[in-house]
């Protein structure tokens, strides 16, 4: 454990957690609408992966606020997007599930389960023929591993030895469907192991996530083809704000909460004496301020003008001819 890295992990996970709690509150106040999928409990995956995979292209599912923050997206722009404001990262046209920022090579927020995996795979193909071996990182949930798009992508990525990391966040539930009801086994890394190196890790431990992705990164950069990581994790909230998550037992929830990625990182760092206790308090204050600023920015930003309705359907040269 490296002190500076632990501090960064803590800061980003805390920022992510507080962002999500604030988003939840803003949703309840009616400032955010639509589907809102919170990452609370899964921050180690979002932060550990993005800290390790710091170059290359990222393709993600729709539970992506914290992943975007960890990639370097400004929380203000994300909150504004959640509020549907024109200052949002997607001009208020995407919302919670569609946070795109090509400047960060972040192509995220795909809201069709598993559908971003063929796209990520195609991107990895292009990077390979360009000699860009930083490659591609694709993150998805347990539910995605039952879809055809998932298996097609494993097959193609392996057949063509593409530089891509498949990262599965296994939180055991696809909305209310327990993975074991619809998959022959709950340890999902088995699904990939005939195609590529495949491993299962503790996704509640940010350091373990970080190390696993670093290893996968070396593998793809050496041109050895794709790599699969399954991270066991848990979401403390429902699937989205319209789901109370009551299909899970309190015992199960308590087991995972006792493994909380943020609290445990702090405890461990203090035990090892590698981070001074004041750091956590200062960071919490800093995070609270940033979140407050993000909410204020979003609240005070203007709505998109109605003229935006027909903008961005086509590129400029096509817009001229499309009625």
């Amino acid at each position: 454990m490296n002190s500076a890295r632990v501090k960064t992990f803590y800061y980003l996970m805390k920022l992510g957690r507080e962002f999500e709690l604030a988003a939840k509150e803003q949703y309840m106040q009616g400032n955010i609408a639509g589907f809102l999928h919170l990452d609370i409990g899964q921050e180690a995956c979002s932060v550990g992966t993005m800290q390790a995979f710091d170059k290359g292209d990222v393709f993600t599912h729709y539970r992506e606020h914290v992943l975007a923050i960890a990639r370097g997206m400004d929380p203000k722009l994300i909150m504004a997007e959640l509020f549907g404001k024109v200052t949002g990262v997607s001009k208020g046209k995407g919302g919670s599930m569609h946070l795109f920022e090509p400047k960060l090579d972040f192509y995220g927020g795909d809201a069709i389960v598993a559908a971003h995996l063929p796209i990520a795979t195609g991107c990895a193909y292009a990077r390979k023929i360009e000699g860009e071996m930083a490659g591609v990182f694709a993150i998805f949930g347990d539910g995605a591993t039952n879809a055809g798009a998932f298996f097609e992508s494993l097959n193609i990525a392996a057949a063509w030895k593409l530089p891509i990391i498949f990262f599965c966040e296994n939180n055991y539930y696809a909305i209310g469907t327990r993975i074991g009801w619809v998959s022959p086994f709950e340890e999902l890394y088995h699904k990939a192991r005939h195609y590529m190196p495949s491993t299962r890790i503790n996704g509640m431990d940010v350091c373990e996530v970080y190390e696993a992705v670093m290893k996968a990164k070396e593998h793809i950069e050496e041109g050895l083809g794709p790599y699969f990581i399954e991270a066991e994790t848990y979401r403390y909230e429902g699937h989205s704000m319209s789901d109370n998550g009551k299909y899970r037992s309190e015992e199960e929830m308590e087991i995972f909460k006792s493994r909380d990625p943020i609290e445990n990182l702090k405890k461990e760092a203090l035990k090892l004496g590698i981070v001074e206790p004041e750091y956590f308090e200062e960071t919490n204050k800093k995070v609270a301020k940033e979140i407050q600023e993000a909410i204020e920015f979003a609240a005070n930003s203007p709505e998109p003008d109605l003229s935006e309705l027909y903008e961005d359907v086509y590129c400029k040269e096509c817009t001229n001819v499309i009625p």
Partner: protein
Amino acid sequence: MLYREALNRAIDESMAADKSVVILGEDVGRYGGSYRVSEGLFAKYGPKRVIDTPIAELSIVGNAIGMAIAGLRPIAEIMTVNFSLLAMDQIVNHAAKFRYMSGGKMTIPLTIRMPGGVSRQLAAQHSESYETIYSAVPGLIVLAASNATYAYHALKAAIFLNDPVIFLEHELLYPMEMDFKEIENFDPFKAQVIKEGENLTILTYLKMRYDVLQAVPQIEKELGISVEVIDLNSLRPLDMKTISDSIKKTKRVVLVEEDHKTGGYGAEVIARISEQLFYELDAPPLRIAGEDVPIPYNRKLELASIPTPDKIVTQIVQWSQANGL
């Protein structure tokens, strides 16, 4: 020039001009393409740019979108439009929507070529026309290439457009010898008046163009009129100006399409004409379209399921007499 050679030339020249152009699909490489459209390209440009894919349409289009995001200009070939339904989610939910839902940040310069239509006894799962589906999707451009000149120029334009293009071809056209002419400043979005006339406008596209042209002399003879024929070329966007100019002159319009009548592409065209040009018309518009049945295998039944030159003549003559032309 053969129709398929025009397509091949458009791809070849585009690949030679720009290294970012790649093609992918089933059998496009070593095999040369199931309709020989990509013949010779594998030998010329190699396996990195001429990519043989597995039979997985979802991934052909999904991969192509990823390549486009990475900065390539992929041309995805779907062996027939019938198989494109497997890629529907990628085409509609991803290629067509990324620009919009990213607030304009994403650009998907993707061309998806797909032959369709009734060929010869290929039966229900290999004979459909789905232009009506793709033309209904904001974010897509839909071009329908009926001839070598348009195919060549429009495909080149499509490849270098910064939006996803559904490029429709017809299976019976590939081996046809056609006139070919190079045109400067070609506009792929413009409909073409392929025969001028005074008393009736026939709108059509893809292979029906030839059935209509075959029917026209008989129609003109039987009715003693002159007929104007317009090949729509671009289905989304639709060139309403050319259509409108013609109808204002002829006052009568017939649309001939191979697709099923119910919800077919022609329904949209006639709806727009009814909204915009109602008082220009001297007769109710007529649609001549495929029957509302899956395409049968038996040749007699197959021909009965789509418009033919004879049927076009008969229906137009009946309609004209009923409407006092």
